[in-house]
């Protein structure tokens, strides 16, 4: 009964907000706009709320509850539309780069946090997890989406515990392992009502968005520590992190870059063009000549699609061969990976579902070649590079060795969120 009343009061509170939306002083312009946006999205719920307001009395609490449920449904529908839109955009590759995907995901979940009707944190978490599960199961290949969702869930949890402790003790973002282990004792059920939680979540989300935006910059700031004068660098294909990294280093140092074409997509050509425009001496080489060049190379610097939980890489096709050649000549392999590319997944077997993405064989073979009906052509997008072939990760927080990735994971994701399909109590 208590919860019913609280929900009811909550709806009432919202009604007041609607009525006085123009003199809603406490709202920042931004959040005010967001609220207005929310109302545009849920025209039905507004009329419902007005209705309950007019006949507001305690015996009708049950009625209002059913209305509230209905309201949620309608809200859910608009969310469903948003999710479907988001999924289809990703499926048709409207957003190509991981950075854009990350930004869009944060925006989407920001909207969810804003529009889901929640009173306790557990409600919010469960709803977000449900959406997250929907999205990740529809897009098993997009690791980045799952990373962002887990990160946001962790932000909600962090903000909740921080508010609960109400600044009694400082919450360090980089908790030590010891602290995490020992702080398990006060298991919270996320059931208490925390005032101003939404605002603090949004503040934290803003920070997170900033982190994503500036991650490439933060990585490239470390360039001078890794690239020295007259070095020969080898890179594979095109990655925005690597491009920025090399450009930053070129401000102070003179070095030479070899770029493999990365067939069949041949992204490497674009990178070579961009670098040469930036007056960096660059040489484009076919993938096959990479081994011959490797003995002269001082460092291999590559980008990555996502970092697996064991420190292995899911990265562009062809990187594994490069990493093996580098291991043969003991050339260090440096991987530029912003924190949001850290994934909680492992590769268990090469025949694993949803690890690799096979695209159209058009790049490998022309359809008009008459052999097409008689051969199977595979055109995988990714390669798996095991952690032992990686020397160093450079993230926006600094350099880490592959064996340290698990530790980073436990810091940025909450262990309860690894599996989104299981509902928390």
């Amino acid at each position: 009964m208590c919860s019913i009343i609280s929900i009811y009061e909550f709806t009432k509170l919202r009604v007041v907000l609607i009525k006085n939306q123009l003199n809603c002083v406490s709202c920042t312009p931004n959040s005010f706009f967001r609220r207005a946006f929310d109302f545009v999205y849920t025209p039905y719920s507004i009329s419902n709320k007005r209705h309950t307001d007019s006949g507001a009395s305690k015996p009708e609490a049950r009625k209002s509850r059913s209305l509230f449920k209905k309201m949620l449904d309608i809200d859910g529908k608009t969310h469903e539309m948003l999710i479907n839109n988001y999924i289809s955009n990703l499926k048709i590759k409207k957003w190509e780069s991981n950075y854009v995907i990350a930004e869009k995901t944060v925006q989407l979940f920001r909207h969810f946090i804003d529009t889901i009707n929640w009173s306790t944190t557990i409600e919010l978490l469960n709803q977000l997890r449900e959406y997250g599960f929907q999205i990740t199961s529809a897009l098993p290949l997009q690791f980045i989406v799952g990373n962002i969702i887990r990160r946001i869930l962790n932000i909600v949890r962090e903000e909740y515990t921080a508010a609960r402790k109400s600044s009694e003790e400082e919450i360090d973002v980089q908790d030590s392992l010891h602290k995490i282990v020992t702080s398990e004792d006060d298991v919270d059920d996320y059931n208490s009502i925390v005032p101003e939680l939404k605002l603090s979540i949004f503040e934290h989300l803003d920070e997170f968005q900033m982190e994503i935006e500036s991650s490439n910059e933060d990585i490239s700031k470390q360039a001078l520590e890794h690239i020295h004068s007259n070095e020969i660098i080898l890179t594979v294909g095109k990655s925005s992190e690597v491009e920025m990294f090399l450009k930053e280093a070129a401000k102070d140092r003179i070095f030479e870059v070899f770029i493999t074409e990365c067939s069949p997509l041949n992204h490497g050509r674009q990178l070579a063009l961009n670098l040469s425009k930036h007056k960096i001496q660059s040489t484009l080489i076919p993938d096959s000549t990479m081994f011959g060049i490797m003995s002269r190379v001082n460092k291999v610097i590559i980008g990555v699609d996502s970092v697996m939980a064991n420190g292995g890489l899911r990265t562009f096709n062809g990187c594994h061969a490069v990493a093996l050649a580098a291991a043969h000549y003991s050339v260090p392999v440096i991987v530029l990976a912003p924190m949001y590319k850290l994934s909680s997944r492992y590769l268990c077997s090469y025949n694993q579902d949803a690890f690799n993405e096979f695209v159209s064989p058009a790049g490998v073979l022309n359809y008009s070649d008459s052999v097409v009906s008689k051969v199977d052509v595979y055109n995988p997008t990714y390669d798996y590079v095991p952690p032992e072939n990686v020397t160093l990760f450079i993230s926006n927080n600094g350099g880490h060795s592959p064996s340290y990735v698990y530790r980073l994971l436990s810091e940025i994701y909450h262990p309860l969120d690894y599996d989104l399909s299981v509902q928390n109590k």
Partner: protein
Amino acid sequence: MSTNKVQKQDVLQAVVVANFFHKNFWPAADGDSACLLPLVNRPLLHYTLDMLESSGILDVIVFCSSGSADRIKASVQRASGARRLNVVYTTSDTCRSFGDVLRHLDACALIRNDFVLLWGNVVGRLPLLPLVKRFKTLRQSGDKGAVMTIVYQRSSDPNTTSAADQTVVLAADTGRVLFHNRARGKINLPLELVLDNRTVDIRRDLVDTNVVICSTAVPPLFADNFDFQTKDDFVKGLLINEEILNSTLYAHVVDGDGYAGEVFDWPSYERVTRDVLHRWTYPQVPEVVDKYSLRYGNVYFGDNIKLALTCDVGNDTVVGSDSKFGSDTRISNTVVGKNCTIGNNVVIENSYLFNGVNVKDKSVIRFSVIGENCTIKENSNISDSCILGNGVVVEPNTELKQKRLLSSDSNNKSKKLSAKAFVYDAENNSDSDDDEDVRGLTFRTRSWSINSGSSSDNDDTASVAASIPDDTCMFYSEVVDSLIRGFEDHVHCDNLILEINSSRYAYNINYREANFQVIRAMLTLNSKAELEALNQVRYYTQLQSKLDYFMPVLRNYIKSSDSCEDCLSAIEDIAKGEELLNTVIVKVIHHLYNMNILSEESILRWHEKEEDTQFAKNIREKANKLIEWLKDAEEETDSDEDDSS
């Protein structure tokens, strides 16, 4: 406001024709809703709509017959890609062909701008927006008369694709279509093609994709030319009357930058299915558009399937969600629908099982299509392109080969096999089995096209029936008609000449061809029955009377030595086919000589001409007497002349 206007102008529409006007897929799907035929467990139409959506087209007009409209609407609503499309439906019951659809569109005035026109059976991924943009700039800057860009795909295997039997001549620099022909074998290209253009591409490796980009001028053109039934009619008509209609056609050949396949019969169904499983249509592949997981060897497993441990799943196989497979069952190259139950020891190869099929133990299915909710009981053997309609129940121990089965008997034409299985017998089932597939999937399809709308069929039969072109055939029959009527009604010969001449112009027959055909017609006026009743003598007298009657006509046509030659070759041609005429051929020639229609020289020249065939030699031997007599007469006249001079 101004930006609003700009947006309105840029609306790009696509018209999807969801009615195929053929029954190639019957009985697995009927003609009206064949676009809902599942290809890799997904209706064909969904592929088409997804392709439009992913290429950025949002306004779609779907044409369907009113009978199937509800089903199509319901299906489109379930399609994931169509959610963001703005789909408008238009229906009509009077449309019998593709041309009618465009006339319908013209009447409804649904088209506001350049549009993409395609059938509901196109599977693939094509960057359509760049194509439309190119078409627009072409119209604005280069050729204002451009009305259509036809998208072709380079065929993967020219030997197996049955649709590749077309010749397209393109101007190499602009891609303009100059010539289009569907005939097999030898073709004649007009010389102007090469004279007017610096370089031309003559291509026989192109396959239709059924995607065209049209300007707003196309529906009115169809409305003006009511005889355009198909796209081929349109292309042909436009190319012939290029100057009059002031419109030109362009072609775009997809090679490397996309893939588009058209599903119009079972062999093409098999080909496109294979291409989908081999991921040429990416991102329209099972695990992206639906919940499947991809395994090595292009094997796709749906959600929640149950495979027995000893079950052997071969390459290129799809298993739909919630399906169950018993132990020791082998499947390969097969698409299995959702909710299927397959028993133990079953063998399925190169087949397509739609949703809800139930196959009991020890059955064998090869190269067949099994419709929705069919049940195949124990120990059955279904092979060699059997096609089972929806809901058929095959009794145990049945053996089926090359059969089409229905679950109910609607018109009492079918043979009853069991309570829920009726074999459909087509009258013309035995002939024209022209679709041979290398791997043995010989679904007989062409013989089923009852509708005459699909022109490729027409061309095929025409080319088999007679080696002469269509127009000449028509002219000939028309001449025969007028002559028969003229003889029976005693029409004056001058009028007959007028009539023949007008049909000569109508069918665009040249002078010599006309001579040939008129003589042929004249000699074959008697019907078969009449001929049998007549003996040799009476036949000749009757023929002679007819020839005498038509003498003015003959005189009109046979004037020069060239025409005499035509006349003689026509007589020879007819004699080859008719025994009776063969016996009196010399008499006929003699008679014509007497009537001063055939000249001496032409007969002699005809006789001297070297011929290879036995028949021609025989005739010339027969004519020896006549020739000798002629030569004698000539010498006499010569000597007479000598004397006189």
